[in-house]
């Protein structure tokens, strides 16, 4: 299995376009082996970046060719939210631990309340 640190593909890892660019760079390596994308130790890995990366894999039917190595629950949460939004399967592992499938997380929006007049609206 090939291991690629995300820092070698993109910095900073915040925008969707950077995620898509990183996915394009990775795509050339897919097919021979699975690839482990190491997200650990990076300042910022945004949800948009991950969504750009993963949705690119999805469009090319390559989403199960990748495993994400992470080091924080925040990253796990982001991967779970992408899995929920995209309704897809994502594999991940923490350092030295077994590979697991992410449990998708679905956002539960609050029911919005219409406020007819904003006069002296304090929040």
């Amino acid at each position, binding site marked *: 299995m090939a291991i690629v640190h995300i820092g070698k593909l993109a910095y900073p890892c*915040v925008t969707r376009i950077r995620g898509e660019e990183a996915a394009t760079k990775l795509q050339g390596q897919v097919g021979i082996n699975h690839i482990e994308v190491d997200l650990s130790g990076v300042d910022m890995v945004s*949800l948009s970046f991950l969504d750009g990366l993963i949705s690119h894999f999805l469009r090319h039917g390559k989403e199960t060719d990748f495993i994400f190595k992470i080091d924080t629950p925040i990253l796990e949460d982001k991967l779970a939210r992408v899995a929920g*939004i995209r309704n897809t399967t994502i594999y991940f592992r923490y350092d030295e631990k077994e590979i697991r499938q992410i449990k998708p997380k679905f*956002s539960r929006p609050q029911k919005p309340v219409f406020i007819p007049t904003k006069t*002296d*609206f304090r*929040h």
Partner: protein
Amino acid sequence: MIIFFIIVYYRWLFPVNLDFSNVDQLCAKVDFRSPRPIIDLSKVRFFRPFSLVYLGMFLRYHNCCNKAFDIIPPESNAARGYLARQNFWERFNFNPDVIKGEKLIRFTTSTSLNDIIDVENRPNIADDIAVAVLKVLRNNRVHVKVGLLSELVSELVDNFALHSERTLAVVAMQYYPNLRRVVLAVGDCGIGIRASLSTNPAYAYLVSRPHCEVTLKAIEPLVSRIPGCGTGLTNIRDETLNLGGRFTLTTGNGYVIIGRQGTKYGNMSYDLPGVQAELSLPEED
């Protein structure tokens, strides 16, 4: 009930803080029949970042339409000094589409806490702002999840870059140590959420819907002008709630506020083009 009305009347007569609750009313009161309309800031003692951005975009938009204003400055020395330090009048008193680059650069070179910066629409601007905000928050030892806050700001700047169809936006960052809170505001006077989203044929029906309803729609996952995109505002909503903060979003005459007290939406008193947003996040214990 009487006390309530006295308080409301007093605040209307003597506004102390200019913020989301009243900045649109201030703009709505401006009499455009006059050749040089008056903006009266004499009673303002304190400017929240959202109000600075909103008022700045109001001035910039009308300046682009060749409208000049007479402004009555704040009586408060502190408020007047604050605006002067931010180069507020000079900053918003030009048309960004015609200003020369060397003049513009004066406003875009520094990023610091308690400051306003103008943001040019250029490649990788959201990345650059994210890194700059991260650095500033770390250097000032602000106890928020700095990576996450920088990420959310970059989402807002990226939305401006992708959808506003304008040259400049503004970012204001303010840290309130006593309140243990960081507030960031981002604004532009571009085409706004409704005009942008309705260019996607799937959402063309929104062109005749109220701005506030369209804004609620835009916050839903995978709703975007660009097919397949649309996670930015959803992410801001979810992370703001996770962090116990508040997210305010206005476009045209619509607003949405998301926070612990729920999601509220409605109409602003003034119909200002573009998108203006504020993130208010508490420091961690």
